[in-house]
């Protein structure tokens, strides 16, 4: 149904308390029907902590869940991130003790220091010449990968992934 403007003389009246009340109801309705993930602001705050570094932010390029038959019903996730200079692929497998194992590959292959910012103290490993790296035990929760320049004398930029949830 389309109402002609002539039926809406009240459009020119100032916003009043019932309008604000109505907008409040609309807000509550959409907040219930399509809620923002509650932890998203914290993940963004986490990401902004890098803002003083010279960084490239990698984008999530692909994500895939697969059932790994050999390990029973446990799911393995493979996630690929792309940035201008680097592709990062990681596979996440559950450990029996409740932590996760993260195996990763950098392309192009290169030795880089890789830090995992996570719920506990940050973990740090170095990729080998084939670009492979592994974090054997990462606590579940929010985590984020930072691929640092290869050495202290290097001037390259760090590459940061969006925050992940394991």
């Amino acid at each position, binding site marked *: 149904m389309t109402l002609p403007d002539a039926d809406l003389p009240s459009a020119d009246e100032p916003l009043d308390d019932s*309008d604000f009340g109505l907008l409040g109801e609309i807000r509550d309705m959409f907040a219930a029907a399509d809620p923002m993930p509650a932890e998203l602001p914290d993940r963004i705050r986490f990401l902004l902590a890098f803002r003083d570094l010279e960084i490239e932010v990698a984008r999530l390029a692909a994500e895939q869940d697969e059932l790994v038959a050999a390990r029973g019903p446990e799911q393995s996730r493979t996630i690929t991130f792309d940035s201008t200079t680097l592709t990062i692929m990681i596979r996440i497998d559950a450990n029996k003790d409740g932590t996760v194992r993260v195996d990763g590959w950098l392309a192009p292959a290169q030795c880089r220091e890789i830090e995992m910012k996570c719920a506990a103290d940050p973990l740090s490993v170095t990729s080998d010449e084939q670009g492979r790296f592994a974090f054997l035990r990462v606590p579940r929760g929010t985590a984020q990968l930072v691929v640092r320049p290869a050495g202290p004398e290097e001037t390259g930029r760090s590459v940061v992934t969006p925050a992940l949830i394991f």
Partner: protein
Amino acid sequence: MDDRRTGPIMTGPIATGAGQQNRPDRGTRIARLMGAARQGSEDALGQIVTELSPLLWQVARAAGLNAGDAEDVLQTVWLRLVAHLDGIHDSAALTGWLVTTTRREAWRVRAAGRKQVPADHETLDELPAAGPGSEEQVIVDDERRLLWAAIGRLSARCQELLRIIAFAPRPDYGAVAAALGMPVGSIGPTRGRCLAKLRTLLADEAGGAWRDAS
């Protein structure tokens, strides 16, 4: 509870969330936080993120992004803000910049064609079914169904405007409407056509009960 029953539906007490979020001084508070954030306060910047991310979430979702893409877009937009913070001086400019940037980034992601969901009318197809709740909750749910149905009869542009404005700081309505490409005066300081039309529709659907304050 009795207030909800006997009062006008849409102006009953708003117990949580919206009432607080929409206080008139919200813009002043954000402006103060921006000043502190420019001085390098991580906490102030974080508070702005917490304050305005729910608004940007609705912007990204109203643009047709799925939840995962919307999260990516919000992260990108906030990171980009950090580089622009020095050039943004008041709450309205900040809110306008964030809404514009979120919408553009959302379009960019959608155009890239990844995990795209149909945008048109996607959001208003169905109000999630209410679980078992108190009598008060049932009354609230009935009110929401009426409101949901009425909003669904508005034009797509009005739906987007009202959905997003509802999450914006009150003094920034004009800036948000402008960021959405709506004409000046589409909302704030006057009611504007979208809200006026919604009120007319609600009055029709509820037999006029909602506006009867007496």
